[in-house]
C-alpha cells in the first residue's frame, strides 16, 4: 500500500516536470497564433480586470510604502540634480539659439513643424500589472485591440520612450519595456553623434548600453540619445525617429577594444510607470509586423 502510494507520488511529480518542459519547448516552436499563445491570451484577459481593480484600490498603500524608500534615495539625488541644473542652464541657452536657427531653416525648406509622434493616434493607458522579476521587464496596460492598440506600436511616457507593444488581448496589452532583455532600440546620439543599438543591462533598469560605437567618435556625459527610426525600404525600426530615450551617463573603452561602450540613463521612470501613451495607427513601417 505504502509502496503504491510512493510510486503514485513519483509518477505525478515526473508528469508535472515533463509537462513544464513540454510547455516550455512547445511555446518556443509555436507561432504567435498557436493554441498555447491563445490560451495565454485568454487567461491574461480574465486577469486583466482583476489587476486593474487591484491596482487602483491599492495605489495609496503602494505610494505610502514607496515613499519611505524614495525618501532615502532623495538625499543623494538632490546633490546630483543641483549639478545637473547648472549643466542644463548652459545647454538651454545653446538650445534656444539652435531652435531659432532650426525654425528658420525649416521654413526655408518648407517643412511643417511637427511633433515626434505626428501621424500617430495617441492612446493613453494605465499600467495595471508588472512582471516581478528582472528577467522580464514588462508591464500590462488597460488598453487593448479594442482601443486600436497593435503589436509593435511604440509606447512613450511624458519623459521619453518606454517600450513597444509585445502582445495584445481585447482589453489589455503587454508592453516590453526598453529595459527588457529582448528589447533593442536603434538610437542616435545628439547632436550629430553616431548611431547604434541601445540594449539593456539585465538587472539594472537605470542603465542602457549603446555598444560597438567607434572609439574615435567623441561622446560626452550628458549627451542626449533619441530613436534613430532608420529604414532601408525593406526593413525598419519599430520606432519613429526623434523620441528621446535617455542621456549618456558614462563611456568606457577597453585597452584592446576598437569600440567604446556608452552607458545611458533612460528618461522614462521604468520602475514607477503609472500612465503611458501608445502611439497607434501610425504610418506603416516596412518589415515591422503589426
Amino acid at each position, binding site marked *: 500500500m505504502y509502496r503504491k502510494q510512493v510510486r503514485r507520488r513519483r509518477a505525478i511529480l515526473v508528469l508535472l516536470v515533463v509537462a513544464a518542459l513540454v510547455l516550455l519547448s512547445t511555446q518556443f516552436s509555436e507561432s504567435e497564433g498557436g493554441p498555447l499563445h491563445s490560451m495565454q491570451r485568454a487567461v491574461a484577459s480574465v486577469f486583466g480586470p482583476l489587476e486593474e481593480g487591484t491596482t487602483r484600490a491599492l495605489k495609496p498603500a*503602494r505610494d505610502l510604502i514607496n515613499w519611505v524608500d524614495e525618501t532615502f534615495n532623495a538625499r543623494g539625488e538632490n546633490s546630483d540634480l543641483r549639478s545637473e541644473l547648472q549643466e542644463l542652464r548652459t545647454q538651454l541657452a545653446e538650445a534656444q539659439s539652435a531652435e531659432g536657427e532650426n525654425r528658420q531653416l525649416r521654413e526655408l525648406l518648407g517643412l511643417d513643424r511637427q511633433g515626434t509622434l505626428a501621424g500617430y493616434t495617441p492612446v493613453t493607458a494605465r499600467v495595471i*500589472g508588472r512582471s516581478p522579476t528582472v528577467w522580464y521587464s514588462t508591464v500590462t496596460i488597460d488598453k487593448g485591440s479594442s482601443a486600436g492598440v497593435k503589436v509593435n506600436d511604440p509606447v512613450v511616457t511624458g519623459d521619453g520612450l518606454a517600450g513597444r507593444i509585445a502582445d495584445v488581448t481585447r482589453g489589455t496589452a503587454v508592453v516590453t519595456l526598453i529595459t527588457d532583455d529582448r528589447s533593442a532600440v536603434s538610437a542616435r546620439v545628439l547632436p550629430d553623434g553616431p548611431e547604434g543599438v541601445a540594449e539593456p543591462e539585465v*538587472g539594472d533598469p537605470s542603465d542602457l548600453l549603446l555598444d560597438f560605437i567607434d572609439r574615435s567618435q567623441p561622446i560626452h556625459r550628458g549627451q542626449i540619445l533619441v530613436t534613430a527610426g532608420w529604414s532601408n525600404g525593406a526593413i525598419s525600426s519599430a520606432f519613429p525617429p526623434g523620441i528621446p530615450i535617455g542621456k549618456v551617463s558614462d563611456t568606457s573603452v577597453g585597452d584592446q577594444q576598437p569600440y567604446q561602450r556608452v552607458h545611458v540613463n533612460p528618461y522614462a521612470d521604468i520602475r514607477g510607470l503609472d500612465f503611458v501613451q501608445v502611439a497607434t495607427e501610425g504610418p506603416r513601417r516596412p518589415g515591422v509586423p503589426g
Partner: protein
Amino acid sequence: MIVTWRIRLRIALIVVVTIVLQISFFSYLSFFGTTPNVVPLMVVSLGLLGGGMIGAVCGFATGLLLDSALLQTLGVSSLVLLGAGYLAGRYREGAEVSNSLIPPILAGVLTTAAAAGFAAIQLMLGVQTTVSLLVLREIFIQGLLAVILTIPIYPLIRRALRPALVDDLSALGARSPIARGASRAGRARGRRIRRVAGVS
C-alpha cells in the same frame, strides 16, 4: 492535510489572490532596488502545510497562471515553483515544523533557490547577459524579503486552511479521526477491564 473540495477551492483562491496581488501591488514596490516576490513564499507555505504533492501541484499551477497572466514563456515559472513547493513539502514530511522560525527561513532559502533557478533557466534559454552583481544582489535581496514577508503571510495561509490541518483540529475544539478512534478504543478497553474485574 485533509483535502476536500472546499479546501481545494480555498487553495485555488489563495493562488489567484497571491498572483493578482503580486502583479498589481508587490511588483510596484521597491526595497533596496529589488521587487519583493510573494509567489514562491506562498507556494512554500502551501508545501509546508500540505506536504510534497500539494506543494508540487500548487507550484506547477501557480507558475502556469503567472506565466499566462504576464504572457511570459510558459513552463519556466511552473518548473521552478514546482521544485520549491515539493522541497518545502518534503521537509514537512520528514521533519516537524515545531519552531516558528522554520517557515520564514525555509521560505527565504527556497525563494533564493527559485530565483537562482529562474535565472539559470533564462540563461539556458539564451538571454544574453553576464551573471552580474546586480542579478546576484536581486536574488539575495529577494530571499531576505521573503524571510520578512513570510512572518505575516504564512500564518494567514495557515489560518485560511485551518479546517484541513490535522495538527490544528485540536485547537479548533475538534478531534482528528485518529484521535477519535484512539479514544473510542480506550473506552472499550476500559469497559473490558472493568467487566473482567467484576466492577460495574
